[in-house]
């Protein structure tokens, strides 16, 4: 009997050690849900995983300006708590728009890095610092090694990292197919807005949100209404009252 008890206790110890190793590998727990049942259920963590690297880019012309991608990230940040760092390469980000999706200007610290290497270095420091909720960097290229470093720094600091990918030309966006160490990869493109209440006037903007890659989930895409003033995405009204027609595997994203 004594022997069995010892074996059991050593097994327990081993389990604890394995758990510790796994925890150190993935220090931060939890996720940021989108608040859309179909989307959150599809993601293995029930949302964007905290303390991990996520990539977001725009589709079509958005690959160059990244306007929707920036707003998508700002919407996620708005639903988090605590200060965030936004590392810029170009000075074209317009802060009132971020405030418009619920990201209060006093939560955002901007850092201007001259080049992509600078952006990566700033991001890594910010992620390791640990006091921030999230750090965003606007990047073109993201090599495997660089993304691995960011992912490790994000795990270490428990800070969520977002790489807003944007390129100089739409054709350079083919780079988005290259593998990186990010946990998830998204593409946000503009769709014609919702049906207008008054003819000729604009309705709510809509996005095609493609989840191109995610650890532990199949690629999928959704047509959603863009962020509201609190950073929430929403199902279009004509889909919300019925059942969600789209599901995983119905339309696979390229890349």
């Amino acid at each position, binding site marked *: 009997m004594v022997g069995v008890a010892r074996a059991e206790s050593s097994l327990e110890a081993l389990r604890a050690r394995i758990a510790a190793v796994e925890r150190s590998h993935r220090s931060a727990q939890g996720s940021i849900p989108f608040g859309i049942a179909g989307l959150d259920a599809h993601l293995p963590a029930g949302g964007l995983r905290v303390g991990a690297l996520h990539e977001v880019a*725009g589709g*079509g*012309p*958005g690959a160059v*300006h*990244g*306007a*929707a991608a*920036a*707003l998508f990230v*700002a919407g996620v940040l708005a639903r988090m708590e*605590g*200060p965030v*760092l936004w590392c810029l390469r170009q*000075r*074209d*980000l*317009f*802060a*009132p*728009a*971020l*405030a*418009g999706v619920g990201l*209060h*200007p*006093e939560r*955002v*610290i*901007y*850092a*201007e*890095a*001259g080049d992509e290497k*600078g952006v990566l*270095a*700033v991001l890594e*420091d*910010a992620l390791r*610092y640990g*006091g*921030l909720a999230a750090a965003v960097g606007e990047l073109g290229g993201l090599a495997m090694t660089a993304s691995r470093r960011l992912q490790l720094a994000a795990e270490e600091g428990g800070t969520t990292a977002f790489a807003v990918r944007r390129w100089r030309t739409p054709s350079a966006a083919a780079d988005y197919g290259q593998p990186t160490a990010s946990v998830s990869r998204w593409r*946000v*493109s*503009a*769709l*014609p*807005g919702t049906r*207008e209440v008054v003819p*000729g*006037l*604009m*309705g709510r*903007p*809509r*996005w095609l949100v493609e989840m191109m890659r995610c650890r532990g989930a199949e690629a999928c895409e959704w047509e959603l209404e*863009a962020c509201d*003033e609190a950073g929430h995405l929403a199902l279009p009204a004509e889909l919300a009252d019925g059942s969600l027609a789209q599901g995983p595997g119905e339309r696979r994203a390229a890349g």
Partner: protein
Amino acid sequence: MVTGRVGARKVVVDADRAARALGVIPGLPVAQAQARVPGLLTVEHAPAEDDAALERIALWALRRYSPLVAVDGVDGLWIDASGVAHLFGGEAELLSDLASRLARAGAHARVAMADTQGAAWALARYGLARKVISARGEVTLDVDALPLAALRLDAEVVAGLGKRGLETGGDLERTPRAPLALRFGPALTRRLDQAYGRTAETFDSISAPDRVTVRRAFFEPIGAPETIARKTAELVDQLCRELEARGLGARTLDLISERVDGRREAIRIGTAAPLRDPKRLIRLFRDKLGYIDPGFGIEAMSLAAALAEPLGPTQTVTSLDTSAKRIDVTGLVDILANRLGSDKVYRLAPVDSDVPERCVQRVAPTAPLTGRTWPARWPRPSRLLSPPERVEAMAVLPDQPPAAFTWRGQRRRVRVADGPERVFGEWWRRDAETLAVRDYFSVEDEAGERFWLYRQGDGEIAATGDLNWFLHGLFA
């Protein structure tokens, strides 16, 4: 005009620019000057006050610009800017800052920056502009063109050289040295070498009377990066204890390494809030230690708090109410500001202005929170083009959105649009804006891309704008 005595004569010691333009030059007898310019304002020369004023400027420069500052003669200042220019965003920015601040204080100063002390001295006094920067490694070109007087030579030496047809630094450089040294003494070749950077030149920096300094001399010169890092950490520890004893926290820290060859390597770091946490200070220095060139070895290092502010004792017991805890990011701000420059790390705050490009201002990341944000009356694009880009568009006047527009060679048909939102010029800023009007439209093309366009002018009165269309921003 300043008057003074040389022997028994009263002569002009110095004159301002207006007086000089009227022919009042230093050395002129006062009686003659007054005869030449009626109503000339004279001030008795007070060398002691001049020196005191220069000393004050030097102390100010020591606090603001560099840990190594010295007074040069009666009218000059040396500032060793190596290792500190990054705090101002570059050498040109540092120099502009220095010049504009001196000008605002009413001092007509000429400033120059060069690789060598001799060249900087010469360019400040004999350069073509009031502000000169000699490009890195290009000091020879600049010195070649300078007159001999710029090489800090005695007047009679300059005159003697002039008789031999030598007028510029380049002339002298091309003349055999040995006869020159024989005729004019060793000072001539020394000055020449200093200007061209062939011999090292140092100055004794002034030091502020009240600053906290710790210094450590080594038995053996050190040079290995790990050793430098370790010694720096020891100095930081020691300084932090000193600061704690005085209830101070450092805002600016200077680390000066004295090399065996007499040169000094200085690095400076700044912090956003008073700080005396050794761990965080060492972290800030770690990024910069690579800039120290140990040469043949460093024989002593000193660390000084160039700028220190009161900082109360640290509280270790946190309050019971942790819900209102604000996360402290000053540590990260310091790291980034020392790497990128303090103007590259900021927060954005609202400004009361309807003109989009003016409604955002930068504030320090540690500025007090006001809770203000932008009014959410109208949607704003997430990317703002600066400057706005001209587009070809056709629209029905006065208040219809365009039916189509061409941007960067691509024509887009407008499916739906919102607007106009009228923005008026701010006449209190510029006269040209008194009547100016912009009519903003948000438009969506057939692919769903949304754009922010405006038309200059209200479409009715010609003075309000020329009716050209511009793309100002991109939604999504």
